C-alpha cells in the first residue's frame, strides 16, 4: 500500500469510509445484478428460467424468427430515428429563440416547454390517448412510416424539451463577440448562424440527439397508450410477451435492446470526443 492511501480519509473522501462504501456497493449491486442475471439467463437452455441448465443461442434464434417482434423492433428504430431528427431541429430552434430574443410571454413559453419534463408520464400517455382517439384520430392503414405518425408526434412532444434544455445550457457559454466578428468580416445573419452558432451548439446537439433517441427507443408508457394494433413497438411487444410468461426469449429480446442502446450511446459519445479532440490536436 502506498503512503498516501494509509493516511486518514479527508472530510470529503467518502469513498474511503466503510458506511458509504457499503451504500455505493449496494447501489451497484441492485443496479447491475438484475441486468446481468437478465443477460445471463437469455443463454439458459431452459424454459423455466430459474436454474442454469446449459448454454444455448436458441432463444436468440427464436427472437429473430419472431416476425412480430422483429417488426416491433423495426417500428421502434424508425420512430426513434424520426423522433430524434425532429426533436433536435425543434429543440435547437426553441433554445436559440429563448436565448436570443426577448418577447412578450417568454416566461410562459419557457414554463410550457419544461412541462413535458415534469408532467407524470402516465398523464401524458392518457392525454395522448384521449387526443388521438377522440379529437384527432390518426388515419389507420397509412403506408410506412406514416402509420407511425401518432407515436412519433407523441415522442417528439416529450423529447424535444430535453434537447432544448441541453442546447440552451450550451448556448449560455457562447461569446457574443464571435457572432459580431463573423458579421464584421462580411457574413450575413444566416452565414453567421451556420458558421459560428451551430458549431458552438454541436456538443449540445449530439447530447440532445442521444437523449431523444434513447428516450424514444425505450419509452413504454406513452407509446402504450398511443400505439394501435398494427403499430406495436419493441417495449410494448416485450410487455405483451411477458403477460404469458417470462421466457428466455424475453430475456434475449431485452438483451438486444440493451446492447443496441449502449452501442448507439457509445458511438455518439465517441463522435463527440473525436470532434473535441480534433480541436485539440492538429
Amino acid at each position, binding site marked *: 500500500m502506498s503512503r498516501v492511501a494509509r493516511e486518514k480519509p479527508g472530510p470529503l473522501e467518502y469513498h474511503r469510509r466503510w458506511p458509504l462504501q457499503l451504500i455505493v456497493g449496494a447501489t451497484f449491486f441492485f443496479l447491475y445484478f438484475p441486468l446481468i442475471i437478465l443477460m445471463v439467463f437469455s443463454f439458459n437452455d431452459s424454459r423455466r428460467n430459474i436454474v442454469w441448465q446449459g448454454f444455448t443461442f436458441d432463444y436468440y434464434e427464436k427472437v429473430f424468427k419472431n416476425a412480430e417482434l422483429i417488426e416491433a423492433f423495426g417500428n421502434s428504430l424508425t420512430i426513434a430515428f424520426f423522433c430524434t431528427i425532429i426533436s433536435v431541429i425543434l429543440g435547437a430552434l426553441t433554445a436559440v429563440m429563448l436565448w436570443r430574443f426577448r418577447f412578450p410571454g417568454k416566461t410562459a413559453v419557457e414554463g410550457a416547454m419544461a412541462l413535458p419534463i415534469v408532467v407524470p408520464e402516465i398523464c401524458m400517455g392518457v392525454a395522448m390517448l384521449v387526443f388521438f382517439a377522440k379529437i384527432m384520430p390518426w388515419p389507420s392503414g397509412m403506408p410506412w412510416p406514416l402509420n407511425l405518425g401518432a407515436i412519433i408526434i407523441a415522442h417528439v412532444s416529450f423529447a424535444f424539451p430535453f434537447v432544448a434544455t441541453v442546447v440552451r445550457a450550451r448556448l449560455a457559454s457562447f*461569446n457574443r*463577440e*464571435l457572432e*459580431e*466578428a*463573423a*458579421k*464584421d*468580416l*462580411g*457574413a*450575413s445573419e444566416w*452565414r453567421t448562424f451556420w*458558421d*459560428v452558432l451551430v*458549431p*458552438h451548439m*454541436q456538443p449540445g446537439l449530439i447530447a440532445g440527439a442521444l437523449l431523444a433517441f434513447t428516450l424514444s427507443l425505450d419509452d413504454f408508457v406513452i407509446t402504450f397508450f398511443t400505439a394501435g394494433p398494427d403499430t406495436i413497438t419493441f417495449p410494448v411487444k416485450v410487455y405483451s410477451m411477458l403477460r404469458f410468461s417470462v421466457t428466455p426469449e424475453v430475456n434475449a429480446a431485452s438483451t438486444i435492446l440493451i446492447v443496441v442502446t449502449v452501442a448507439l450511446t457509445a458511438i455518439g459519445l465517441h463522435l463527440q470526443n473525436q470532434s473535441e479532440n*480534433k*480541436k*485539440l490536436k*492538429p
Partner: protein
Amino acid sequence: MTDLATAPAAKPTPHVKENAIIRFENITKRYGKVVAVDNVNLEIREGEFFALLGPSGCGKTTLLRMLAGFETPTEGRVFIDGKDVAELPPNKRPVNMVFQSYAVFPHMKVADNVAYGLKMDGVDGGEIKRRVEEALELVKLGGYGDRMPDQLSGGQRQRVALARALVKRPRVLLLDEPLSALDAKLRDQMRSELTSLQEKVGITFIMVTHDQDEALAIATRCAVMNRGLLAQVATPADLYEFPNSRFVADFVGSVNMFEGVLDKDEQDHAIVRTQELSAPVYLDHGVTGAKGSTVWVALRPEKIEMHKRPEGSSPMKMEDAPAGTNVVAGVIRDIVYLGSETIFEIELESGRRVRTFRSNLTRYDQEDFTWDEPVWLAWHACSPAVLLS
C-alpha cells in the same frame, strides 16, 4: 530653442493624410435614460493611429461600435470616407474590428480564421491562400496556419485576430482594448509592434483604451472622453502638457492641483493666489480668464525640483526667489522607491501634500533625502498649466 510654451515636437507622421476618413457629426447614443455618448463631433484623418481614451463607462466602446455598425446612433450622423453609413449593416462597412476577447473562431484552424472574411467576399481560392499567408507573415505567425486557436497563447491569438481583420484591407481598423488581456511584458512588446504594423500597412487605426500610458505611447492623436462627452482631442504631448480641464489633467498622468483665484493677468505674466501654497503662483504667460475668477494650477510631479533646506532658514518670499521660479517650503513625509525613480510626498506649510519624482541617476543617492527632512520645492514659471474648468 523653441518657445517653452509650445508643445514638444510630435512624432513624425508622414503617412497621415489631410482628408478626414471618419467624421462623427453630433453623435448621441442613449440607452433608455443613460446617455452613453453625448453630442460628439470628431474627425479622424486617414493614416492616423487614433486612441479613444477614458475611464470605464465613458462611452468609448459605444462610439467604436457605432463605427463598426453594431450600434445605431440615437442622433447624428457617421461618415466613413465621406459616405453616410447609417444604412450600412456591419458586414457591408469598409471597417474591420479586433474584439476585446479576440473572438477567434475556436472551431476553425488559424488559416481558416484568417480566410473567413475573404471567403465571405467571394475572393477566389488561390488568391485567398496567398493573402492569408501574407497576412500571417505580417503578424509574425508564418507557419501557424494549421494550428487550432486553443493551441495558441493569448498574444498569438490576438495576432490571429489582427491578421483576420487586416487581410480584408479595410479602410479603418478598430481595436477595442487590444492589449488589456496581455501581461505587462507582452503588452509593452505588442505596443511597439502595433505601431510598426500600422506604419507598414498605412491603414487608419482607431484604438479604445482606458490605459493612458498606452494611448500616449502608441497614438498619433487621442480623444479623451468623460461621461459620453469629448473632453479634449490632441496629440499625446499636448494632452499631457496642455490639458484643457481638470479632468484631462488628472486622468492623463499624475498631477498636483491647486485651487486659487486669478489675481493678475497681463500679456507676459499672471499671478494666482491660493490658500494651499504659502506664496502666490507666478506664471510667465498670460491666462485668458476674468480677474478674480477661480482657476486651478496643475503641476506635474516631474516638473518640481527638490532642494535641501537648512533647518531654521526662513521661508523664502516670492520676491527673493530666482527669476522665473516659484519656491515653497515643505517637509518630506513619504518616500516610495520604485527602482527607476523615487516618489516623494512633501507636506507643505498649509498641510497640503505634494508629489514629486526623482530619477535614480546613481546607485547611491548622493543627496540622501530622508523622512521628515525639510526641503525647498521649486518649479519654473512656465511649468504649471492653468485650468479654467
